[in-house]
């Protein structure tokens, strides 16, 4: 394992410190742990909190700021934060308008956030939640835990965050977050693994001529292995799965081509080139495109493609100003 780190048990801590030192105009850290909140608390609006394990940077600390989140809670690498951490975050940002928890659908995340929500409600704080489950690589069914939440979460932050910023009520913000969740689908693939610092070795092994299709964002292998293929071919596989899952016919979409951490922008753009061509062929209109590191898996070499089916409300909220360390819109 070769990394620019100091000690494996200090990565989360030093990372958060490094982030708040980089962006003091946007974020500060709570004393109680790796919880990052807006430098200036904004009263009179629904407050949004999200989080998960570390290792997904810029998620979620990078999305704390005007027009997106009010707090982000970071657990150990790829490990859901604990209920107390989340609870401290909620307390720090809670307003009379209430708090919306944006949870990614992992057993651990859901349990820990829910426990925190219960603790906060016991204190009289209004809490609502949504669970993001955009990963179409995973079979959805009632008898499993369902799909994972992955890069589509960033659209939830952006759009629900923009609505909250207008002063909308908790139920409306929650409903809008859920509307985004209902309309976003994501799938990814990876060609090399990542290494959790404390584990010291890669999460999976992969041959030089293989790729993992249907990867998650926690360094785990995908839903299946495939022979390495061209960028266009893997893009086709992913788009087929996404377009087969939700009817995008005739609609306008926001596209996100997300890097898992080590994939160079060159490759992301090559992928987007084909995404744009395929969508054009199918008569799906691209309203806006995002290319870059939005929801990573430390230094995994992989990517995901997300398509969000937009309506007029979502378009307006997607276009609204945002000013956070990792997501800015003028």
């Amino acid at each position: 394992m070769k990394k620019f780190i100091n000690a494996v048990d200090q990565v989360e801590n030093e990372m958060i410190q490094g982030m708040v030192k980089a962006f003091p105009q946007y974020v500060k850290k709570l004393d109680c742990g790796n919880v990052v909140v807006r430098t200036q608390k904004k009263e009179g609006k629904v407050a949004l909190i999200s989080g998960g394990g570390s290792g997904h940077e810029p998620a979620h600390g990078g999305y704390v700021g005007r027009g997106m989140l009010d707090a982000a809670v970071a657990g150990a690498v790829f490990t859901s934060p604990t209920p107390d951490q989340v609870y401290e975050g909620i307390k720090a940002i809670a307003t009379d308008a209430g708090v919306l928890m944006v949870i990614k659908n992992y057993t651990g995340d859901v349990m820990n956030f829910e426990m925190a929500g219960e603790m906060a409600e016991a204190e009289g704080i209004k809490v609502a939640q949504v669970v993001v489950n955009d990963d179409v690589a995973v079979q959805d069914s009632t008898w499993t835990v369902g799909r994972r939440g992955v890069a589509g979460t960033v659209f939830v932050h952006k759009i629900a965050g923009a609505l909250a910023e207008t002063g909308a009520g908790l139920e409306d913000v929650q409903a809008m977050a859920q509307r985004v969740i209902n309309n976003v689908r994501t799938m990814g693939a990876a060609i090399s693994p990542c290494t959790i610092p404390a584990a010291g070795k890669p999460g999976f092994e992969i041959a030089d001529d293989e790729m993992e299709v249907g990867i998650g964002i926690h360094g785990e292998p995908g839903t299946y292995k495939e022979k390495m293929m061209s960028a266009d071919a893997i893009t086709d596989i992913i788009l087929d799965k996404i377009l087969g899952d939700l009817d995008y016919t005739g609609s306008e979409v926001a596209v996100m081509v997300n890097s898992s951490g080590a994939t160079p922008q060159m490759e992301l753009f090559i992928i987007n080139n084909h995404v744009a061509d395929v969508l054009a062929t199918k008569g799906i209109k691209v309203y806006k495109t995002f290319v870059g590191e939005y929801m990573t898996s430390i230094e995994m070499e992989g990517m995901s493609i997300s398509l969000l089916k937009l309506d007029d409300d979502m378009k307006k909220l997607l276009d609204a100003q945002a000013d956070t360390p990792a997501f800015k819109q003028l």
Partner: protein
Amino acid sequence: MTTDKIITIIEKISAKIQEEKLFLTELDNVIGDGDHGINLARGFSEVEKKLSTMGDKNPGEVLKTVGMTLVSTVGGASGPLYGTGFMKMGMELKDTADVTVEDFVRVFQVAIEGISLRGKSTTGEKTMLDSMVPAKNAMEEALAAGKSPKEAVACGVAAAKEGIEYTKTIAATKGRASYLGDRSIGHQDPGATSFTMMLEILEGEL
């Protein structure tokens, strides 16, 4: 088992977890995200620190503290689940000062219910429950059949181990391994494994 004994057992469980940290992590690597050992080791290190000040508390309070510490330091899925389990046992024991194996099996049943509720899970889903539930059943039966406490827990350990083997044969439907679908078949569940380790420590201490 008095408070001292309980503390000793927890300390030995902690030592075992630290020892098996990489093994448990490796198991989780294959079908999860490779952190189960790291998570539990972090939590039990914190638990050990707490134990030193608990000599004058009753067993129930000790277990409750263990549970709360796990909840607030482990994270992930196993944190709330093990945490809930220990807390439930602690609460159920009330002020029992000397815990028998019969007591343990009774409160363990409550712990399992708590875990099942928190995790929205049941047996056959390739989780810790696939070792916990058979272990509890085996211990109940052994006690009912008049076996000694130590023999009963040994039966529990044997059943827990069979549970591990069983988890190899099924696909996960809960937890991270569920995202792998059928690809999870053939691999044992990390949580079932860590639970079995804990029960073995108990057996060794009787």
